[in-house]
């Protein structure tokens, strides 16, 4: 086993319930139902354990985390432990009252998602009529209370042409930061991959828009730009390395090294319902499965970048090659790199498979 430094960030997926149905949702295809969700007391204990372990920031996410009525209580508890509290929200449940409760609980920062700047485009992705107006109102309420705000945009072939307008909107709403993230293709995103895939020309135009906006806005707007893997030839250091910085807890309490890890076969997913978070982080087979570099095959094993990209993404390797321990095919040195090259050219328009709970 490898000694693991403590995690920096906890992604607390409080619920998979969400009023939106985005076809690239990072939640797993098998969504967890309300009856399976952890109780308030479980989360309070998890926050205690996370702080003691060395977690610095808690990202309250979902689903839509504001669907949990105990969110202010959880934020208050995390703040009392000196954890930095971030809310990742669609914004459609934000009102003066719900936001005030979170602000008074000590919330440090809000990441508000937008699906597009164009109302029709946004509501085609999110599947909720009236959502765009609610999000704009939410952004204004957040600003009025002085809570630091980041706008999140996931971009894909249907909305990527509007990246310049997204950057302008972030600036106009007074957000300190904006994230322009090309879609990641796991779970729901993988089901809809060809319908989301931008062309090389679209990618180039979006990158240029970001460069121009950085020059124009300077320090008044920080821009995080996440490029799409499939158009690259070097993998990203997914999660900063498996089990090195990041821990994800699902609504029912499963503890994962990333949101997509439940796709990995033949391994037990540990749970905070039965084990302590620190034990899971340090000793569980799941967290040690791809930790460090010992698991790597060739050509990763002798690659000078192995501690730079940490072998890229295991879930992507699994999704594309059927083997979670294979070299990430995004890497040009992978003998299966052709898979991503072909997929990057396969984009076309069509009808999405929306994120929904399976019929019971």
């Amino acid at each position, binding site marked *: 086993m490898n000694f693991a430094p403590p995690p920096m960030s906890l992604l607390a997926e409080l619920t998979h319930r969400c009023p939106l149905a985005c076809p690239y949702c990072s939640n797993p295809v098998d969504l967890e139902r309300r009856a399976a969700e952890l109780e308030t007391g479980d989360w309070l204990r998890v926050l205690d354990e996370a702080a003691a372990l060395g977690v*610095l920031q808690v990202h309250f996410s979902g689903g839509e985390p504001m669907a949990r009525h105990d969110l202010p209580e959880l934020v208050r508890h995390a703040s009392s432990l000196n954890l930095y509290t971030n809310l990742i929200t669609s914004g459609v449940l934000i009102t003066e009252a719900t936001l005030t409760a979170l602000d008074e609980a000590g919330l440090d920062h809000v990441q508000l998602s937008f699906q597009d700047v164009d109302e029709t485009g946004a509501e085609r992705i999110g599947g909720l009529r009236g959502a765009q107006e609610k999000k704009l109102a939410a952004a204004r309420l957040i600003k009025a209370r*002085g*809570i630091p705000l*980041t706008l999140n945009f996931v971009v894909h072939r249907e909305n990527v042409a509007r990246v310049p307008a997204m950057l302008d909107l972030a600036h106009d709403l007074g957000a300190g*930061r904006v994230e322009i993230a090309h879609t990641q293709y796991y779970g729901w995103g993988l089901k809809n991959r060809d319908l989301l895939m931008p062309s090389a020309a679209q990618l180039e135009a979006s990158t240029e828009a970001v460069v121009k906006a950085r020059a124009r806005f300077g320090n008044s707007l920080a821009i995080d730009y996440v490029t799409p893997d499939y158009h690259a030839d070097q993998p990203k250091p997914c999660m900063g390395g498996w089990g090195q910085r990041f821990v994800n807890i699902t609504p029912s309490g499963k503890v994962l090294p990333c949101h997509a890890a439940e796709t990995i076969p033949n391994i037990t997913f540990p749970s905070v319902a039965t084990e302590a978070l620190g034990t899971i982080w340090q000793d569980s087979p799941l967290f040690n499965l791809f930790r460090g570099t010992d698991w790597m095959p060739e050509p990763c094993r002798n690659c000078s970048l192995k501690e730079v990209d940490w072998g890229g993404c295991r879930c992507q390797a699994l999704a594309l090659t059927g083997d979670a321990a294979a070299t990430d095919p995004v890497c040009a040195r992978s003998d299966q790199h052709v898979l991503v090259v072909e997929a990057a050219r396969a984009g076309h328009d069509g009808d999405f498979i929306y994120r929904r709970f399976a019929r019971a």
Partner: protein
Amino acid sequence: MSVSETSVLKFTRGHRLQHDRVRDVWLIQAPEKAFIADPVAAAILRLVDGTCPLSAIIDDLAASYQAPRDLIATDVQALLASLLDQKVLGA
């Protein structure tokens, strides 16, 4: 952006200095990241409280570290001007 001896600075909302007991380092917490403050930066930033002018912070450090005041002043102004520019600190 520049700072002067009369500037009174504080951490902007969304940023704070905190001691990490587990790793025994000082950190600046920021949206979606935390960066380590080295011991010199931490010594300076612990005195940034929204009430003390820079001149008082510099006096305090010059006395604590028994170092020439202008040397301290240069370090303090460079660090704080940079953090002001990054909006980690505000007036």
